[in-house]
């Protein structure tokens, strides 16, 4: 299996050979930053297009198909448009916070994005509490949303932001706990180690019942955290026109729009990493020939394929279910998911203590 760290080490050594270490690091940082932004943008464009195509298919229609072959560059057109669109400055808003808020959202999702292990050795941030950092970073986004709602001086925005706050605080618990279940099983929080330790079997199989429950809970809570249907209360179109970003125009709105889709991918990527073995191919203990055959598929493909399936499932949720009401949303978390999660965590601890996992 190809290890991407070969490439990165080679670049690193090459740079260090021609300049002092500090210079090399500086150049690498810039390079990584640019690369990250580029990949982020590309992912956003692809995901938005994918969403529009997938939702069209669910709704017995075709979706974008006239811009470029099969509509493949539809979102590029959208990007060109939204970049050249006017950003309205609004009177009577807290303009500093109003302009800051979209950047907070983007930064949060960029930080989380940079933790994702795309392939073997292809990961930007990797340290001993990686998964904790990832969850923490991704929830900075809520600050952006709250600020947006508060600073817009719009009643709809404010209601949307408050809903978002309530929602985020609740579901953050479930996300943390369900990931904790797997951390108990694996004994590490470092993302690379999490993936490596699924070499023999993915965690969702290794931890059987409690892992499956944790997986489902994570998916639900993750969807809720990205503010996507059926949990899209903060921007509930039929209730709050556009929720917290009602007053945003041009690229500022574009940031929210993009962040929503990349966040969805991040949730799918975490689910993939933690439960479905990340970039690790499907290995079944005892079937060595099969395992070797699986290894021929590059790790990047494995990771993306799993993530795409997860993204599809999240989209499937959105395009099937009606929106929850705020009390249902809170009830679902506190009455069903949280108790379930706590019990599940204890079960997992017992299983690990007794060695009943695979």
């Amino acid at each position, binding site marked *: 299996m190809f290890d991407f760290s070969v490439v990165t080490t080679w670049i690193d050594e090459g740079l260090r050979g021609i300049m002092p270490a500090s210079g090399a690091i500086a150049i690498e940082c810039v390079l990584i930053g640019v690369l990250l932004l580029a990949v982020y943008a590309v992912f956003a464009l692809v995901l938005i297009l994918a969403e529009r195509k997938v939702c*069209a*298919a*669910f*709704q*017995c*229609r*075709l979706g974008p198909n006239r811009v470029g072959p099969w509509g493949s560059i539809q979102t590029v057109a959208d990007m060109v448009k939204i970049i050249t669109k006017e950003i309205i400055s609004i009177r009577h808003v807290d303009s500093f916070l109003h302009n800051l808020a979209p950047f907070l959202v983007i930064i949060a999702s960029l930080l989380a994005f940079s933790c994702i292990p795309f392939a073997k050795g292809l990961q930007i941030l990797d340290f001993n509490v990686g998964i904790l950092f990832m969850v923490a970073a991704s929830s900075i986004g809520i600050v952006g949303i709250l600020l947006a709602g508060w600073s817009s001086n719009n009643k709809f925005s404010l209601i949307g932001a408050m809903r978002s706050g309530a929602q985020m605080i609740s579901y953050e618990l479930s996300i943390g706990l369900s990931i904790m279940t797997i951390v108990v099983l694996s004994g590490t929080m470092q993302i690379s180690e999490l993936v490596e330790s699924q070499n023999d079997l993915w965690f969702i199989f290794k931890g059987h019942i409690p892992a499956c429950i944790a997986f489902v809970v994570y998916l639900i809570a993750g969807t809720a955290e990205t503010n996507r249907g059926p949990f899209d209360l903060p921007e509930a179109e039929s209730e709050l026109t556009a929720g917290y970003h009602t007053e945003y125009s041009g690229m500022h709105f574009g940031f929210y729009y993009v962040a929503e889709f990349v966040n969805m991918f991040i949730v799918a990527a975490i689910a993939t990493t933690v439960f479905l073995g990340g970039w690790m191919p499907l290995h079944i203990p005892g079937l060595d020939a099969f395992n070797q055959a699986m290894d021929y598929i590059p790790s990047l493909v494995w990771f993306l394929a799993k993530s795409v399936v997860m993204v599809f499932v999240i989209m*499937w*949720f959105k*395009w*099937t*279910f009606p929106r929850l009401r705020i009390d249902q949303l809170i009830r679902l978390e506190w009455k*069903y998911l949280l108790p379930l999660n706590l019990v599940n965590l204890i079960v997992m601890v017992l299983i690990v203590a007794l060695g009943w996992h695979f």
Partner: protein
Amino acid sequence: MNSLVKYFSDFFSALKSLLTGMKTTLKVFFRKKTTELYPEKRGSLYVAEQFRGRLEMVHTEDNHHHCVACGICQMNCPNGTIQVESQTVTNAEGKSEKVLVAYRYDLGKCLFCELCVRTCPHHAIRFTNRFENAVFTREKLALVLNRPGSSLQPKPAKPAPADTNTNPAKPE
């Protein structure tokens, strides 16, 4: 105990309903799509024969129309979409008669109620299927329906009165 049973039965029935929904949408996901490709497949587009796209004056091949400028359509029009401009001339037999000068029709105002066509005693006007009418300027919607140089069909060739209730419009 009962409440606990209810808690779980509620949970599972809820889960079942959600899964049924997901199954249904997934079925549709793989079904054939119903979209009609309008500009791409413009030729094979389904537009009903009776569809009222815009008003048109019937002209024969030698540029004759059937309008005698009686103004009944103008009288019947609920909102003044039609204006028949006519002048009185003396014809060959020495009788004075009305002659159509311009049949003005404001497409941007028409409500397609068909009262004009239904009441026209000479079947001089009809609705066609042509629906591609969008323009950039308001003035372009004010139409004159009689073609330049056209004149009234000479008497003998007056068409047999067709059924008032069938629309002679043909798809273009």
